């Protein structure tokens, strides 16, 4: 993939926060950028990878990506790492010690919080990492700031000789706004300098670094007191003064244009002196924070009287709609009731698996099995917990399906003695954090069957490459991991490793039935690619022959979004039981001919669609 020619300095571009960060990473002369995909952070590395003059990679997980970036920093290069909020849980082992070593080349770590859980298993406030690791943390409030703060973060990183955290949220990453960009300033790596007392963190060395970390934090605190990134808007209405950062600061400006606002850009360490003076200048202070009352508690601990979560929610995104009534409550006022359009109740529309997704066959099969517990994982296949399959019973974090399955096996009592335990995990998640769990299962002789759904892509985040796809971030060919060999190396007996086509339902069913009966670890690998990959080959679509359809609805249990009900009915069976009927059609334009729905169709009513174009008709062998 050829690199782009970046827009010239002075251009005013319409960029998302992720795109703005990517531009700044390039302008800042970064040499190495690494990440594992995760919403809402994914596009940062995707965008960075198309710039010239730098190395960018998809790492196998966030911890490795941070270690790669740190290694580049040790070599004196500017480096960058991006992850979603839960990614830092994985990477924090490395983070908590690199705060002691410090850095050589500037190192910026972007952490993107999914406030409101648009696509995550939890809601976390990554501002705590700044406090926990004693590192500076910057919080941009729009795309222009995302760009400017990324550049400022590199400058701070090198000045204070430590990693700097750039904390983003969905409403920064995925909001487009105008950004004026500048010139790239190349940054030549300062070179590797051997220094065990600095880079080898054994207790004797680490002990000596701890006081340096606290001294650095003291200097950073002084920096925050004078930093231009922390901005005061005087305002005219002094009844309530606001302290906010990131998107929350924008919402304050929108909802209370006349109010005093202290907007934190360098929010960790907090500039307590300036905030104390600000609090003294207004009648009351409201700290506006999304999710946790972090700053509110710090200010209260410092003896500064503030309001916060007494009127604001501790979950989800804030907006002017949330702020206005909260402030009214704080002031003991009631807002006039605005004339509104009544909200209408409409069916929920949860995300579905794609038409012809290879996971459809897996979940259809799992939904037909009884007396099983399915330990699940993070990816598209988490959707198997939903309708119509209801065939995923647990999901907490990347790779957890393995350990949870083993724990379910070892912890089971008499009541569950006959239950079969399965784990379901995708290829990229397996490589991210699942391999170790499988090793634990074989090492500790677990009675668990693992379904390794190898679709050769990180599907949920848009089909990114990974070591299982055989291509790198830039789309170039690389070594593709051999999953059967890998599983064997992790201790699974070769005869317990089965590779099946997930579109062959009888084979899949038989294989799962066989393996769950055998009381030792087994791995069933499905080997068909994600339908989102660019080399996916659609087949001829299928259609329902109306006269043959009996309305049994079996095909609907596959869960393919291309199958639609044309009419419903009822039938009284011989045993007197009334059953619902649903007669169906297949959306020809959407169907890619995977053939899954044919297999449960008893009356064989699903057949190849007649070609509609006369040209296609001519091409069809007669």
């Amino acid at each position, binding site marked *: 993939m050829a690199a782009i020619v970046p827009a010239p300095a002075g251009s005013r571009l*319409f960029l998302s926060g992720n795109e703005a960060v990517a531009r700044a990473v390039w302008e800042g002369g970064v040499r190495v950028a690494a990440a594992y995909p995760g*919403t809402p952070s994914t596009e940062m590395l995707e965008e960075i990878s198309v710039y010239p003059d730098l190395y960018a990679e998809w790492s196998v997980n966030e911890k490795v990506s941070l270690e790669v970036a740190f290694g580049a920093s040790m070599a004196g290069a500017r480096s960058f790492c991006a992850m979603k909020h839960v990614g830092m849980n994985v990477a924090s082992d490395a983070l908590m010690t690199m705060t002691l070593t410090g850095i050589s080349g500037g190192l910026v770590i972007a952490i993107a919080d*999914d406030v*409101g*859980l*648009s*696509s995550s298993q939890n809601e976390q406030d990554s501002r705590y990492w700044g406090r926990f690791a004693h590192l500076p943390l910057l919080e941009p409030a*729009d795309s222009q700031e995302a760009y400017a703060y990324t550049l400022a973060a590199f400058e701070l990183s090198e000045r204070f000789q430590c990693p700097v955290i750039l904390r983003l949220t969905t*409403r920064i990453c*995925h*909001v*487009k*706004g*105008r950004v004026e960009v500048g010139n790239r300033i190349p940054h030549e790596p300062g070179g590797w300098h051997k220094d065990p007392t600095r880079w080898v963190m054994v207790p004797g060395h680490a002990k000596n670094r701890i006081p340096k970390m606290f001294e650095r934090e003291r200097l950073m605190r002084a920096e925050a007191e004078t930093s231009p990134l922390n901005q005061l808007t005087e305002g005219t209405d002094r009844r309530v003064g606001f302290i906010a950062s990131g*998107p929350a600061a*924008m*919402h304050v*400006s*929108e*909802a209370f244009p006349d109010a005093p606002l202290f907007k934190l850009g360098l929010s960790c360490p907090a500039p307590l002196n300036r905030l104390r003076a600000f609090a003294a200048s207004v009648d009351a202070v409201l700290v506006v924070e999304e999710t946790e009352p972090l700053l509110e508690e710090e200010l209260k601990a410092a003896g500064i009287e503030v309001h916060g979560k007494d009127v604001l929610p501790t979950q989800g*995104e804030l*907006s*002017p*709609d949330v702020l206005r009534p909260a402030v009214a409550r704080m002031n003991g006022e009631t807002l006039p009731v*605005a*004339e*509104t*359009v*009544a*909200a*209408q109740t*409409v*069916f*929920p*529309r*949860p*995300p*579905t*698996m*794609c038409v012809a997704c290879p996971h459809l066959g897996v979940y259809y099969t799992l939904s037909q099995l009884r007396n099983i517990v399915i330990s699940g994982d993070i990816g*598209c296949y988490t*959707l198997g917990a939903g*309708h*119509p399959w209801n065939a995923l019973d647990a999901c907490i974090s990347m790779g957890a399906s393995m350990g949870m399955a083993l724990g379910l096996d070892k912890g089971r009592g008499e009541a569950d003695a006959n239950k079969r335990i399965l784990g379901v995990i995708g290829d990229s998640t397996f490589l991210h954090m699942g391999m170790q769990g499988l090793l634990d299962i074989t090492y500790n002789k677990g009675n668990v069957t693992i379904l390794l759904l190898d679709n050769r892509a990180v599907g*949920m985040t*848009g089909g990114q490459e990974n070591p299982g796809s055989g291509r790198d971030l830039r789309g170039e060919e690389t070594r593709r991991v051999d999953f059967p060999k890998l599983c064997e190396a992790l201790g699974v007996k070769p005869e317990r490793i089965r590779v099946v086509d997930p579109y062959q339902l009888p084979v899949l069913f038989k294989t799962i039935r066989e393996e769950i009966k055998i009381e030792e670890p087994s791995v069933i690998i499905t080997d068909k690619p994600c339908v*989102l990959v660019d080399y996916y080959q659609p087949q001829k679509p299928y259609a329902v022959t109306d006269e043959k359809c009996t309305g049994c609805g079996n095909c*609907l249990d596959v*869960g*393919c*979004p291309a*199958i*639609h*009900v044309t009419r*419903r009915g009822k039938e009284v069976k011989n045993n007197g039981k009334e059953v*619902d009927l*649903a007669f*169906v059609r297949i959306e020809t*334009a959407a169907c890619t001919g995977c053939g899954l729905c044919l297999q449960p169709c008893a009356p064989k009513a699903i057949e190849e669609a007649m070609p509609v174009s006369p040209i296609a008709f001519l091409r069809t062998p007669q």
Partner: protein
Amino acid sequence: MKKDVSNILVVGIGGQGVMTATEILAEAALGLGFDAKKTEVAGMAQRGGVVSSHLRFGPKVLSPQIPLGEADLVVGFEAAETLRWAHMLRPGGTVLMNVARLVPPIVELGLFPYPDDPVASLKKLGLTVHAFDANELALELGNLKLGNTVMLGAMADYLPFPADVLLAAILKRFSARKPQMVEMNRQAFERGRAAVAADEALPA
């Protein structure tokens, strides 16, 4: 309520081109020197989930999200989705909508009903509603993917700038990326625009 900022909410489901349409609309506004912000709630949009794309433009835009009850225009790419988001409109606001239905598996499974008549429900709320089948119009031109240009055409006479500015933004985008599609998009735009004009001409 400040009215120097225009708020347009474009809704539909993943894969319909909602985000692209909003992006083109934003480009048109930016070209006129407006500040603009565009944001989506589209966590799993590629999976047939709900997409709502907020576009705000004016001299200066702060919050990216349109406040509840302040959308000037709701543009619905799908019938039920339009109904889902109608409460975001300011009272007396306008709905421009595709009547085509995209029925998800959860409804096909019989777990939830699809609304009987979304257009009638919207009119009952006292909103100005202009409805048409954008999918049909796109298919008449031979390509369902032209649906989002049809929808842009439908908006053309409801924006605080001339329709030609929007058309120019669409054509500029296609000249750069798919020059062979320029003429088809011009036609799709005009069909969407005409569909709304025809609906306006009907007695309410």
